[in-house]
């Protein structure tokens, strides 16, 4: 008897969209966080390094988003819970004028409550 997981068929379109949007948002967040930090430091001739703990926050969120997106994309699917915390932090990225993470965060919160997506999450968690 093998212990291998069988791939679950019938991935909902909204789940796939959520996966790729989270990945894209993560990449955008990493790039924008690093750019913002770099610009602040260069623009203030080094003094802006004091603001780095704040300006680097989108980059940290971006890393978490990519890790989560990779978990969602794995084949066979890993057991993973819908992460509302990540979606809330994505929406909070509006403070850094990040439009893409905000859109992804709103859509993520909406999709997590979709019956089809909820059923898929239940299925992949039950199969573990």
């Amino acid at each position, binding site marked *: 008897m093998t212990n291998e997981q069988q791939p679950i068929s019938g991935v909902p379109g909204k789940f796939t969209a959520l996966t790729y949007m989270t990945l894209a948002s993560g990449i955008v967040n990493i790039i924008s966080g690093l750019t913002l930090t770099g610009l602040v430091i260069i623009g203030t001739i080094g003094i802006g390094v004091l603001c780095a703990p704040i300006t680097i926050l989108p980059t940290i969120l971006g890393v978490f988003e990519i890790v989560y997106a990779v978990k969602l994309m794995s084949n066979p699917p890993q057991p993973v819970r819908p992460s509302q915390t990540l979606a809330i932090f994505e929406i909070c990225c509006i403070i850094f004028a990040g439009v893409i993470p905000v859109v992804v965060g*709103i859509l993520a919160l909406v999709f997590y409550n*979709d019956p089809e997506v909820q059923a898929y999450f239940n299925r992949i968690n039950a199969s573990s």
Partner: protein
Amino acid sequence: MQNPQFSTAGKTNGLAVTSLVIGIISWLLFIVLLCLNYVILPLLTVATMGLGAIFYICTLSVGCLSPLGWLIGTILGYVAKNQIKQTSDGNPGMANAGFIMNATGLGLTILGICGIVVYAIAVGGFGFLDQLQYPR
């Protein structure tokens, strides 16, 4: 025969949508005004040798709309969340998104006001107002 794709099961709450829309508009307004105040208006003021500074008055009055929008949006989002919890009719994700978006803006506004008050206390009152009345 009813198409399952267009059934009423996925009904949206009106308050949740309103909260979300108010949040998006308020944030857009805030970001546009921020760009205007720190990039475009200083350039305009320099280019018009000071005349462009009149536009600062216009942007100040419009700038008050964002915190007002965030306040209204937060209340609407909270009410929508409670309504959805009670009736289980509508998507709570949209209400949550609207509430968080507006609450973030409101929190930022409160933090800004606290910062101004702390600064005023630290430097010993609103001295700049005295200077306006009694120029030295």
